[in-house]
């Protein structure tokens, strides 16, 4: 195992054109409208780690995930996985070999599995696509192994997805993702469509598989408690920008960016520790017309003239003028341990 990060994302940016149709625009004399879904996002993921992206809806976390796996071309910036650029046109041959090692698990297991395919075919698809087995028997064998790995019965290969519950379907999706012996898995809200007791089963399974197979995860979630349970490093997104990247432990013990603090304060407190919390202010603004300067300034208690004017650069993992100028105060512990 080398020390170089498995995934390196630099200056990733994605702009969507959300203009009205051409004629409407001409008649109403309106300019083109664009939405910056992701703007200047950089991070790296080390081997065997879980990097989590958290944020509220519209913060651009799913767009980042789709660009990392190559489902969506970025408008600018670069994704490098294991030394191979995913965005450079020239690297096509090496990229094709790399593809096998990158898989994705989606949020809704009711939508991500084809209802007309048998589970065996769903799991075998990557094996066939990458020519990983010599004959049909070997494909079947591998499918059976894969299903056993996620806690299902090899005999389940003959069934259709509708015969399974939500949690079992998500297990099938995981078996499919692992079938091509991939080692980098992008999970986009893997448990948010599931009940809590089933969520616990899937999260435990994901951690067990990571320990056994040395997987690297990019986990997208809006649920901070899930992230806390899974992640080694956390990136907090707000309106397309990465506002804080810190080791998971630090994010929860001493959040630095004012938005991270607000987000932690907003999570309902199951421990009922009676810990004092600042009430949350306002809502995410419209991403088509984001606020000037630091996009968080209208909701931030520490905002001053400079925050309204210029966007903060990322310094030591935090993009905030107040933190850089030492105005944010000591990072306070969000929650006393135990509660």
């Amino acid at each position, binding site marked *: 195992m080398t020390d170089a990060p498995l995934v390196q994302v630099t200056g990733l940016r994605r702009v969507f054109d959300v203009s009205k149709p051409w004629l409407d625009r001409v008649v109403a004399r309106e300019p083109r409208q664009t939405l910056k879904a992701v703007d200047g996002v950089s991070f790296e993921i080390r081997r065997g780690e879980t990097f989590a992206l958290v944020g509220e809806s519209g913060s651009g976390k799913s767009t980042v995930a789709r660009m990392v796996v190559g489902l969506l071309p970025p408008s600018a910036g670069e994704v490098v996985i294991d030394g191979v650029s995913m965005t450079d046109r020239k690297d096509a041959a090496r990229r094709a070999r790399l593809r096998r090692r990158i898989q994705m698990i989606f949020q809704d297991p009711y939508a991500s599995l084809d209802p007309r395919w048998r589970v065996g075919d769903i799991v075998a698809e990557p094996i066939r696509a990458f020519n990983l087995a010599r004959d049909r028997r070997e494909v079947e064998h591998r499918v059976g192994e894969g299903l056993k790995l996620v806690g299902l019965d090899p005999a389940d290969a003959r069934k259709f997805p509708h015969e399974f519950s939500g949690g079992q379907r998500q297990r099938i999706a995981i078996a499919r993702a692992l079938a091509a012996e991939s080692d980098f898995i992008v999970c986009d809200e893997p448990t948010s469509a599931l009940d809590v007791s089933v969520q616990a089963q899937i999260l435990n399974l994901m951690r067990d598989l990571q320990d056994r197979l040395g997987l690297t995860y990019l986990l997208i979630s809006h649920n901070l*408690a*899930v992230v806390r349970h899974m992640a080694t490093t956390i990136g907090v997104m707000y309106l397309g920008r990465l506002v804080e990247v810190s080791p998971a432990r630090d994010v929860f013990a001493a959040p630095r960016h004012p938005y991270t603090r607000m987000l932690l304060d907003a999570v*309902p407190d199951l421990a009922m520790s009676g810990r004092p919390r600042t009430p949350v202010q306002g*809502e995410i603004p419209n991403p088509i017309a984001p606020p000037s300067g630091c996009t968080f300034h209208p909701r931030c208690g520490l905002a001053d003239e400079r925050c309204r004017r210029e966007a903060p650069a990322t310094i030591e993992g935090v993009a905030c003028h107040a933190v850089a100028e030492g105005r944010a105060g000591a990072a306070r512990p969000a929650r006393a341990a135990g509660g």
Partner: protein
Amino acid sequence: MTQPVLSVRDLKVDFVTRRGTLKALDGVSFDIARGEVLGVVGESGAGKSVTGAAVIGLIEPPGRISGGEILLGGQRIDDLPPAAMRRIRGRRIGMVFQDPLTSLNPLYRVGDQIVETILTHLPVGRAEARRRAIDLLKEVGIPAAERRIDGYPHEFSGGMRQRVVLALALCAEPELVIADEPTTALDVSVQAQIIGLIKRLCAERGTAVMLITHDMGVIAETADRVAVMYAGRVAEIGPVRDVVKRPFHPYSRGLMGSIPTLEGTADRLVQIPGSMPRLAAIPSGCAFHTRCPHAFAQCWLERPEPMEHEGHRVACFLYEPGMESARARADRIPADSPPVPTEEAKP
């Protein structure tokens, strides 16, 4: 004891289908007192939303209330004719649903929808109704309410819409508000605001609240008491602090342990083996026995009735008088142990 605002007694709801009668609710009982927030939690299929729909008389065929009774302020409401029920809905029971867009008519200004509800239920004039609507919108935290009252629902953000829906639920000064997953469609930062609002407004008015959600955190934050539902039955009901910190029923224990927390002390989450049974295949006896690490012969045969235990009502034979030693034994078994194999426990 004063009379509870809502009293549900042994409520049963059936859905008649081609493949037989499905019991969505099977003997559900609880009370909600004035100014109290009762949280109803459970996983999908536990019967939480059906309970809410039964109370407001919105069970659609093929579903039907097949037994038990629902009392609102001492008056029976489950057998009222539709016209009489319509007068109660909105007037005496307010409703907040998950998706604020489906509760608001997109073609009417939000103010008109509130004014119309006030005029329908309260003996006031149009000018007075509008004045009240503005006051309400201010109270639920809509900035510039005088201007926003003439806006259409699409001009409001998700959180603001849910505030409008809350104003709509409260405008006829109901005794009871049923909130079915009121914050599920919202982001956490907005969710916290809405929870705070529901709690404050209902406490001020002495409105009883039935808060239905799958999110234990929301319950811990808001509710006074909590009912844990499983397969159409109430497994456990008790003060929220006790149920969250020291649950009794084996299902509630597994459920609480399976929730990842921000404290994140546990390395592994508790996982209850298996999943919620389908309505067509609810196990005999105690519905949880197939997943329970403590099940014994009686659990296969008989259904446990809720019994008082240290201020909770628990539907589990372990809490019957005389079961102290079995209980002590069960306390030593981790909540995520595999269920007792059929051969061993079967009579």
